[in-house]
């Protein structure tokens, strides 16, 4: 795994779980899944890696939700393995608490990690239109929280 790939996976779980311990564990597990799909003594091409990552991270997140893991609900402050995090995480925490799982994940994949729509739709076996629609809805919701967060401040 390259460092940028690790960074991608870690960023995803940092925002998806908002819990340091769970995110670190999830990151390792998902990277292990990605490694399984990697042929020996070689690295996956970037688009293939992203596809594998989207699928693996989605499955792992779903598994955590089924287990009702504490990490999903907990909003622990990032520390330790996070070197630098955005200062204003308030809107994100609010969004994390209130939004649907799909919207949350799509926003992270597409808007934070900049994974192209076709890759996401292929990995999840969905149409691009569906993915795009959900992202639009999620952005709208997140935007309204940023507004309210600013006005509250």
């Amino acid at each position, binding site marked *: 795994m390259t460092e940028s790939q690790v960074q991608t996976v870690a960023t995803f779980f940092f925002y998806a779980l908002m819990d340091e311990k769970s995110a670190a564990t999830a990151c390792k597990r998902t990277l292990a899944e990605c490694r399984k799909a990697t042929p020996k003594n070689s690295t996956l091409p970037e688009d293939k890696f992203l596809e594998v990552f989207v699928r693996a991270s989605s499955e792992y997140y779903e598994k955590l939700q089924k287990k009702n893991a504490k990490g999903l609900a907990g909003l622990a402050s990032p520390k330790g393995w*996070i070197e630098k995090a955005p200062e204003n995480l308030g809107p994100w925490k609010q969004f994390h608490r209130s939004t649907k799982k799909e919207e949350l994940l799509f926003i992270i994949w597409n808007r934070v990690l900049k994974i192209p729509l076709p890759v996401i739709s292929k990995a999840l076996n969905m149409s691009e239109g569906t993915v795009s629609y959900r992202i639009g809805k999620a952005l709208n919701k997140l935007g309204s929280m940023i507004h309210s967060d600013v006005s509250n401040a």
Partner: protein
Amino acid sequence: MPKKELSEFFCKELIYDYVDKTLPEEKSKSFEAGLKKFPGVNSDLQKVKRAIDYCNQLEQVSFSPDFVRQVSGSWDIRRLLKAEWASWSPLYKWSLQALVLAAFLAGLYPYVFKDFLRSRAFKTTILAEAPSESLVKEPILENQTAEQSPAGNSVAANSIPPTPDERSSEIVAAVEPTKEAASSVNAAKTTGKGYVYRGYLSTATPELFSGQLVTFLNSNGAEKGGEVDLGWRRNDGFYFHFIYPENQYENLLAHLKSNGRVRIEKSEHKRVMPEGKIRIILIIESPLTKDESRNDENQPRSEATGPATQGEAAP
């Protein structure tokens, strides 16, 4: 061609595609017209733009190089295990530690504990072998008059170490009085009892005499009794285990006596020899070794065995 006007609902649905610049040009123009017409659409567009800007800020997260190194291609397995270990609950940790310890001990068993237990069993057998006062009666021969032990009684059985093949055998010494040894052999034959003769010879040149004795035995029809050859070197002495013609016993005795101090005792054994054959286990050592071995003997054990007679005897 007149532009097709979009409703507010449609405009709102197209906001993300417009921002993402995936709308066809014609639809994009229709959307912009709707944007001017419907304030709600404009408001939503601003929200989406804010959200996109915010997401761009979120992208700025970075992780500690240690963590990245830990989970990237070049895993430092030691650090990873340490981190994983720290995150485990004490119950899991203790269970794993117990399992590892058990596996370690199980792995060591064939190499260490088996020998240790065997040596314990050996000692136990010696103690069992030490005959009680009522059982041991016949140290058969010594070329001098009775040599008394420090306790005042000679304990022949104790001074003769057990042989390798005799360790686990059930030995109950029951020996006839010295002068009637020959008749006791006959009695044993009739009763189906077996006997073994355990001897000890102390000589200044054990190695030299050992070689001579091998020649002597071979020329007098002795056969190797155990697994090892005649004159097998054992600790500081030489070990002889052989089957010998009964009628040649006196000759052997004379030969032994001419080369040092001899002590032989006869004890009962489960193995019954064929008629005319006797089984002898003889150890040849230098006097120094003998003294050392005597000093090593356990004093309470000697006392427990009680008095034993010594003297010249024939089978």
